[in-house]
């Protein structure tokens, strides 16, 4: 880390402080993308479905947090004595669980009938889902910004020259917890069933694994992770004003993260997310002043990075190469 810092100080304009701050924000943003990408990869690995609706589910999850925490104040209205942050956490937990349930319902209604169909056809179904969920959640949030009422607000913590928003630290902590939980989950009995299904659906079925249940679990976990990613992309400093129709589009940028890591690699999702996050923030803070690049260049850096990686490694950094039959 010190070596990177020294190089950064020597090479880039703005010095070490700017570099380390960009790196910190980049890793925090990368964690958001990693959360979104993880959900996506888990769904793809277990069910072979490319979920284009992931961004929409993320936005819906973030909206549900604002609904439970701000609009109806559940469960805060029943436990009035509890501190604010605990009430908000519980609301967020309910919202994430609700999103997971919605994910399972979606799987049961639209994905289950498509087992055995071509990958592309199922992917198109999720494109349709994306339109439906995005439109309905946009209508629910009245096409404007809706605050999540999170307890962190816009306060910062200074660690030496590094200044991190509380939400960024929360993002990192939650991401680490999620990754540990996932690692533990994949060692549990159910997790092994999910891995077996990912490996070979028919063989898993022959071993007595209920593949349908595995599908539901994968979609539940995927949707829950999407909701987490959605929450953190609609609190400060990412989306200071809360969840908005724009959130779903921001979540779209997690797709390059998935592709860079490889569609079916969980490690790849985390690495890809971090690469994309750091690249986007660095492009924003170092290339922002270059006038001929225009507005919003940072927003397409993930896509450009994805294309470069794909040209070198067509299945992403950690993706399994497809074995093709002649």
């Amino acid at each position, binding site marked *: 880390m010190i070596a990177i810092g020294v190089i950064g100080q020597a090479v880039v304009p703005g010095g070490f402080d700017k570099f380390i701050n960009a790196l910190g924000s980049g890793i925090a943003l990368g964690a958001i993308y990693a959360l979104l990408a993880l959900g996506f990869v888990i769904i793809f690995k277990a069910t072979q479905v490319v979920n284009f609706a992931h961004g929409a589910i993320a936005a819906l999850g973030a909206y549900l947090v604002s609904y439970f925490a701000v609009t109806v104040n559940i469960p805060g209205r029943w436990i009035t004595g509890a501190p604010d942050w605990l009430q908000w956490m519980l609301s967020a937990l309910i919202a994430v669980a609700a999103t997971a349930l919605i994910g399972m319902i979606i799987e049961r209604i639209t994905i289950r009938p498509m087992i055995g169909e071509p990958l592309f056809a199922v992917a198109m*179904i999720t*494109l349709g889902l994306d*339109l439906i969920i995005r*439109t309905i959640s946009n209508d629910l949030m009245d096409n404007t910004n809706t605050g999540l009422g999170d307890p962190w607000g816009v306060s910062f913590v200074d660690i030496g020259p590094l200044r991190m928003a509380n939400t960024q630290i929360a993002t990192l902590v939650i991401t680490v917890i999620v990754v540990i939980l996932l690692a533990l989950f994949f060692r549990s009995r159910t997790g092994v069933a999910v891995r077996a299904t990912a490996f070979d659906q028919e063989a898993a079925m022959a071993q007595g694994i209920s593949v349908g249940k595995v599908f539901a679990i994968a979609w539940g976990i995927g949707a829950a992770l999407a909701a987490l990613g959605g929450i953190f992309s609609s609190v400060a400093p990412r989306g200071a004003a809360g969840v908005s129709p724009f959130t779903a589009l921001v979540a779209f940028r997690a797709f390059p993260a998935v592709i860079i890591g490889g*569609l079916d690699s969980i490690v790849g999702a985390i690495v890809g997310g971090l690469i994309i996050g750091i690249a986007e923030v660095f492009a924003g803070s170092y290339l922002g002043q270059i006038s001929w690049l225009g507005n919003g260049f940072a927003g397409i850096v993930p896509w*450009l990075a994805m294309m470069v990686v794909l040209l070198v490694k067509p299945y*992403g950094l950690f993706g399994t190469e497809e074995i*093709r039959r*002649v």
Partner: protein
Amino acid sequence: MRGRPNLYTNYSSEMGLFPSTTKKVSMVLLAVIAILAPLHALPYFGFLGDGAWMVLINKALVYAIAALGLNLLTGVAGQVSLGHAFFMAVGAYTAVVLGGEAGNTVWGLGLPMWIWLPAAGIVAALVGVLIAPTAVRVRGLYLAFVTLGLVFIGLYLWRNLGKIAGGPTTGRPWPELEFSLWRNMDPIISFTSDGPLWWWLKPVNLLPWVHIEEMDGEVKTYFFVLVLMAILALLGKNIMRTRIGRSWAAIRDRDIAAEVMGVPEAKGKTQAFGISSFYAGIAGAVLASVVGRIIPESWDIFLSVEFVAIILIGGAGTVVGTLMGTFFVVLTPRIVENVTGFLATQATEGGPFAWLGKLFVRSGPDDWIGIVSYPDAAGPGLSVAQLNIVLFGVLIIVFLIAEPLGLYGIWLRVRNYWKGWPFTY
């Protein structure tokens, strides 16, 4: 072979454009309907010639051109593309730079249509050929993401290239559909202004009830786009049934096997991207000039999804299916709007469908039951535009689950039922 339309005695007759008499007759019928419909000359369907319907049908015809292109790429060559909107935008902006009027803030050469329309297709095709090497290297769903990335990169470009695309919220005016020899010359044929179709058609009046000498601008646009679409559809059909198209189908079905048989994969995919982008470029240019003014944000992912949905709903890999899908997708919103309006009036004024209207339509701030807010879109409940997007998503899902062959599959089943009638086999 009389009376045995399915008996082909040689390969060339099976690959013929219209292999049976039935198909020839139905094509002629279709052509007659297509010519008479806008002239208020069809019994019961005279309303199709009204301005609002003509605008919608014109849009469908332009969409059909782009959908034909995507059908060649996705349906025939099997390359999944979500980047069709990008190629359409390339065509549209080529057209406006070559044909548009120069201003203080925008470029424009003011060249006539016979230059900008082919150029729109050719430039888009060149860009498609540039993208093709990626498609050779990256396959399947990874390719879908690359083309998705193209749309986002394109949106960034159009937002920032103000000299080409105009202001981010205003766009810029597109050149009109009119045929003139060179810039600043009077148009020989204008496809947008009211009046006779062409000067020499003025005295000719074959059908007394058809007022050809005073044609609406929309109707003239219709004939222009119809002919353009028909030419491109025929071209597409010919591509599909000759060497190029069959090599694409071989690549789609099993690319390695195709290469073993001597079908060059890289060449086929490059051709497919180039030709498909040519269609998209033409469609983008015509769409922009029919609409007149387009903002950069219009070339977004939703437009691409619309075309993917059109070929899925219509039936991938067929020209007829693509056309059916286009009309279905473009006309459904209008029908939904009319039905919503009808149900709303039923709910307020009473009628046989009043109960349905009350359940479906949320008429005001005091009404809490209903899915659609109509006519006032405020408050909870979807607006009609939002309902259309939701329905569109539902349609994609329903068609993929229930009828993977699309409208074309439904048509096949109906046709086969009547072919064997009264027997079921």
